[in-house]
């Protein structure tokens, strides 16, 4: 059983933004050290290690490479690759290992040096890696092009507007500015977003996520073991995944995704419903995405996610704060790190010490990670008390 037995006992992040003095592995190690210290543990206490992948440092066996780099010899170790969904999926795997007694303390890290560690060739490769090599890439799509086609279809079916999408980016920036580790200082307006450089219609550059040097880390253990530890644990109330496709041509739908399926599984495990959620950290690689996710996860009715953002209710002071750290749009995005920052932020908000960006009601958090083209999903429900 995961519920009431598995907790996140420590969280950490590397320095964020442009960090040229650290390699991708270095960023992961920095985040790992901070997470392990946050839990009140030492690196030698880690018996499980899960990590993601790296475009900038594409080692063959990333899990083993990171273990080697950290100087640990885990008995449970792997690297996972489900794009932006990887941190959530890794947490799911870690939780199963903890719940079944296969590991006692699992360290999860994700991130890389996307901002400063990429050659021009790597950058081009990164832009085409998600598309199908034979049947999509010959037509010149960027990753934003795929999401742009989802946005156009969504606008067509549900009347979601460009202004509502821009409101997502404006809100993310406002939250990021309140984060002491954030590289952001300049507020955005709807007009700033609408008049920014077009990338792939209807998405402009300010509808697209950052490219950062960043990594995040979690220490996952049992609720029993966490009782003796320093950090205030966050309970994993529920978690669920869904994997429906990878390439967008094969997506079952451009308006209904696995988000709803993974969300249902997480709600079911927790016994909670959308009305129990105090705040959410959604995956916002592009401004249309959290609008769709808010709807699929039941935080807004179908077709009303855009209006939810435009209403201001997703602000830290609103009725359902979303992306309290600024998300991928304004806080950080480095490979698989994007979703990890959402998990880290949820744990911090649950503890209740986040100053200018602390949400008022912080008992139950929902986090969603998504990878590919809304292809691979993981929904997590976390809380500050056992249920």
């Amino acid at each position, binding site marked *: 059983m995961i519920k009431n037995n598995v907790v996140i006992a420590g969280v950490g992040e590397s320095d964020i933004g442009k960090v040229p003095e650290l390699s991708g592995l270095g960023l992961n190690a920095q985040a790992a050290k901070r997470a392990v210290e946050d839990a009140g543990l030492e690196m030698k206490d880690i018996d499980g290690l899960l990590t993601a992948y790296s475009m900038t440092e594409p080692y063959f066996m990333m899990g083993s490479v990171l273990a080697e780099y950290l100087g640990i010899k885990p008995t449970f170790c792997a690297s996972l690759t489900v794009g932006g969904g990887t941190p959530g999926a890794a947490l799911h795997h870690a939780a199963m290992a903890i719940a079944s007694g296969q590991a006692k303390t699992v360290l999860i890290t994700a991130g890389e040096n996307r901002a400063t560690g990429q050659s021009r060739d790597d950058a081009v490769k990164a832009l085409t890696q998600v598309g199908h090599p*034979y*049947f999509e890439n*010959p037509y010149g799509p960027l990753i934003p092009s795929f999401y742009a086609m989802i946005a156009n*279809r969504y606008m067509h079916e549900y009347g979601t507007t460009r202004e509502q999408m821009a409101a997502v980016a404006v809100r993310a920036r406002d939250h990021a500015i309140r984060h002491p580790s954030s590289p952001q200082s300049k507020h955005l307006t709807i007009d700033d977003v609408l008049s920014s450089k077009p990338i792939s219609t209807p998405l402009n550059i300010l509808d697209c996520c950052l490219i950062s040097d960043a990594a995040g880390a979690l220490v996952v253990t049992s609720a029993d073991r966490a009782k003796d530890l320093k950090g205030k644990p966050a309970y994993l109330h529920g978690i669920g995944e869904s994997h429906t496709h990878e390439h967008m041509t094969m997506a079952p739908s451009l308006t209904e995704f696995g988000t709803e399926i993974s969300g249902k599984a997480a709600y079911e495990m927790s016994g909670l419903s959308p009305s129990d959620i105090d705040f959410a950290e959604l995956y916002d690689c592009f401004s249309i995405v959290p609008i769709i996710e808010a709807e699929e996860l039941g935080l807004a009715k179908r077709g009303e996610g855009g209006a939810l953002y435009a209403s201001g209710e997703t602000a830290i002071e609103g009725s359902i704060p979303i992306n309290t750290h600024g998300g991928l749009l304004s806080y950080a995005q480095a490979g698989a790190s994007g979703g990890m920052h959402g998990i880290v932020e949820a744990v911090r908000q649950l503890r209740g010490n986040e100053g200018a960006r602390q949400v008022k009601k912080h008992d139950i958090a929902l986090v969603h990670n998504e990878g590919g083209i809304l292809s691979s999903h993981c929904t997590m429900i976390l809380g500050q008390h056992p249920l």
Partner: protein
Amino acid sequence: MEHLLPSPDVGPDAGPYWDAAKENRFVIQQCTDCNSWRFFPSHLCPSCGSDKAEWKEPSGKGVIHSFTEVHRGPTPEFRAHTPYMIVLVDLDEGPRIMTNLIGNNLDQCQIGAPVEVCFENRQNDTKVPQFRLSKTEADT
């Protein structure tokens, strides 16, 4: 004269697809057991699991499911062609396919618009299937 875009990467699952394109023919797989058409090409039918399929010519007609106009290409070759249109087309036979929308009336690109297959020359004497807006009664 316009520079040709790179030739497509060709995978072993789809030799007949690219061979046909060189002859201005559009072929996709149809399952011999359950008759469903499929795209991308694959060894097994995603509907019934059969490993028996034939390469056949569908009507070549479909409608635009969604589209985007690309303003920043992924490579120097594509960057030289911006802006260009990418569409997802729902073929009349069922499968969805991604191509560019080509032609001189791209301002009429919209969701639901009828389109038909055509072919574009690429480097090394290759061709790729593309789609263009179908001529309507009013055009003729």
